[in-house]
């Protein structure tokens, strides 16, 4: 057992932190507020690629650094610390990782080098209306068409779909769930922009008898659900890592602000009621951080991590919610003033809370596992 970072892990963390803190600032984020400009920093994406960070978990054979999910999660955490306007989770976790794990040699050679070099983007469509489980799609159907498939249905909140070379998604067939790589420019694909509070570019993806060639089938009905479950757990863990970054920064911003802000002639941080609410955030963030690192560590080591991922996601939802409101409250009006940087963190904390299942939903899922005897304490 070791809670410290290896030298390589610290290198990844430091490199990411230095690039992100140099290139992301409230001034640079401001023009993307309210969709006035697209929330995507191409220069930053290019710099991350140049530094090798986009390929941190991509094999060297495909232009990456060949590290694992732990190192990638540290990049995601740093992206959370700055709420960087780049698609680290959709592209690098939800799409590139399963492609590398389950893709054919041809698929990997065709699609992964572009991700590592920043020249092309991948994304994943994980959500349907009232269905947040991509391993069991209900509103997207596919049928066999030669060696490929024809797919129809609707996915929601698909990040960066307009820029993606391929969109990884699941569909139900008569034989089971398949995982497909859909070209957003293919005939029958419609992208309708959705406006979400983080200002991340997201889309409703409408598929009307879209042809998917054999070369773009990632997994057939024998393996599709497994692939989607695999990537779903990693995406959940990555959302938790992002939440570690956002909550830690929001909490520390609050601690600094209350240490400076004076009322009754003293810093408001000296009021016990203020200090204690901040202390609760500290405990919360530590619990989230440790549960996240545990989930990531197990996933990196190839161990079963379903319970640990669910538990981390429950904490990510609860802690995001509590830290968001404690931070806003302890800042007084400043916390909600759009000229002060906190509010943007609050929308991202909410995003991380809600994506792939809220705390209530995930508690219910964990509860079912407990009832089935699958989640005893060791």
């Amino acid at each position, binding site marked *: *057992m070791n809670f410290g970072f290896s030298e390589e892990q610290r290198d990844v963390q430091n490199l990411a932190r230095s690039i992100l803190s140099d290139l992301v600032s409230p001034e640079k984020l401001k023009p993307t507020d309210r969709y006035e400009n697209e929330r995507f920093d191409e220069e930053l994406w290019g710099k991350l690629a140049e530094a090798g960070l986009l390929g941190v978990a991509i094999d060297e054979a495909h232009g990456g650094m060949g590290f694992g999910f732990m190192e990638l999660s540290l990049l995601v955490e740093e992206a959370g610390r700055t709420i960087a306007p780049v698609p680290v989770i959709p592209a690098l976790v939800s799409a590139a990782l399963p492609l590398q794990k389950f893709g054919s040699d041809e698929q990997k050679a065709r699609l992964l080098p572009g991700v590592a070099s920043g020249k092309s983007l991948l994304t994943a469509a994980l959500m349907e209306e009232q269905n947040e489980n991509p391993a069991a799609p209900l509103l997207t159907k596919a049928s066999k068409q030669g060696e490929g498939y024809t797919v129809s249905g609707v996915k929601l909140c698909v990040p960066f779909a307009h820029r993606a070379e391929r969109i990884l998604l699941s569909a139900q067939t008569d034989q089971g769930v398949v995982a497909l790589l859909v070209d957003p420019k293919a005939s029958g694909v419609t992208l309708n922009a959705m406006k979400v509070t983080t200002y991340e570019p997201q889309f409703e993806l409408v598929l009307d008898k879209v042809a998917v060639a054999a070369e773009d089938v990632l997994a057939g009905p024998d393996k599709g659900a497994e692939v989607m479950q695999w990537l779903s757990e990693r995406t959940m863990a990555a959302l938790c890592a992002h939440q570690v970054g956002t909550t830690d920064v929001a909490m520390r911003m609050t601690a600094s602000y209350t240490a400076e802000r004076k009322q009754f002639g003293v810093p408001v941080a000296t009021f*016990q009621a203020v200090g204690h609410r901040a202390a609760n955030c500290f405990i919360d963030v530590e619990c989230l951080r440790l549960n996240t690192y545990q989930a990531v560590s197990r996933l990196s*080591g190839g161990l079963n991590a379903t319970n640990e991922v669910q538990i981390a996601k429950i904490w990510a939802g609860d802690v995001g919610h509590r830290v968001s409101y404690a931070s806003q409250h302890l800042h007084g009006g400043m916390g909600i003033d759009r000229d002060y940087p906190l509010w943007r963190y609050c929308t991202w904390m909410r995003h991380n809370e809600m994506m792939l299942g809220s705390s209530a939903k995930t*508690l219910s899922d964990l509860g079912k596992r*407990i009832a089935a005897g699958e989640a005893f*304490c060791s």
Partner: protein
Amino acid sequence: MKVEFTPEQEALRSELRAYFDELMTPELAAECDRDMGEGGGPLWREALLKMGKDGWIGVGWPKELGGRGMSPIEQFIFVEEIMRAGYPFPFLTTESVGPQLAEHGNEWQKKNIVPKILTGECLIAIGYSEPGAGTDLARLKTTAVKDGDEWVINGQKMWTSLAHFCDYVWLACRTEENEAKPHRGISMFLVPTSDPGWSATPVNTLGGVRTNATYYDNIRVSDDAMVGELNGGWKLITGQLNRERLSLVNCGPTQHLFNMVVKWAQQTDLPQGGKLIDQDWVQMNLAKVRAGVEALKLVCYKQAWAMSEGALEMADASAAKVYGSEFFIEVYRALGEVIGQFSTVSRHSDNAQELAAKIERMYRTASIITFGGGTNEIQRDIISAAGLWMPRAAR
């Protein structure tokens, strides 16, 4: 970063689990239950001596002190397993005072006290609080006055838990009046409870657990009894408390209790058909406990690891204590809800159910450590100051 145990640590845990399964005979369990989970009975003492002889109490201690030379992580695994087994382990002695004595004790203490702690032959209670000094501990009034070669100790302590069967009290005494900086006039002593000037009266608590008021009437001790430097007691107190806080919130018993309640709910029939655990609200309660205990486990493990690196952070120790103590209260409530109204039926009732009665009592004892071991308000002050660099109010 690798949060999982090594194979050796897993093997140690399995070995300890088997060891304690054998050690906790029904007779010993019954005695511990009778003694309200505090220990002190003859079978309890016998078992402690056996653990000492088998080299477990000091598994994570350096070999030169009589330990097995493993790390604080292995020590933590040992404590987790013993507490999971339901044995009231005297962790205040072994995990908090013991290490302080090993580090700061004098030759006499290292020769006569430390080895006996590791063999299970010496038990030590903590004497800090007084009728007029609780959270503001530095205002304590029990005095140690030098008289020739000896120290003469007079005063009264409160909440001296376990003292009625301990050999010594780790006693905080005033050795110098210092009105401006009262914590600078405090020294630590090991005071024998066998001294005729020592006495205790019981204080009975809501949870049925006995604690004590203890009295110190002209007790004479030599310099051998002083721990650390004259007027240097405060850092020994805070060091001891940091270690105590981690032991207080050990996750072993809760993990075990959770597993027992899950099994019980899986087996228990509902009169309308189906099992108790089929109900959504039961699953939600259990899931909340499961998610919470996982965090507690990790908070504890991280600190055991930090100790092995020599880097235990004060804010982390306080965070563990606040989180764990407040979580336990919610655990007993949530698991008690699953049990239903039977979780108010005492173990003395004719138709008592073992698991329900256990939770019934734990619910009554749960508040002790939200204020014991340093009240949670002070812990939160420490967290905001040491963990978040927020300025503190003058007091």
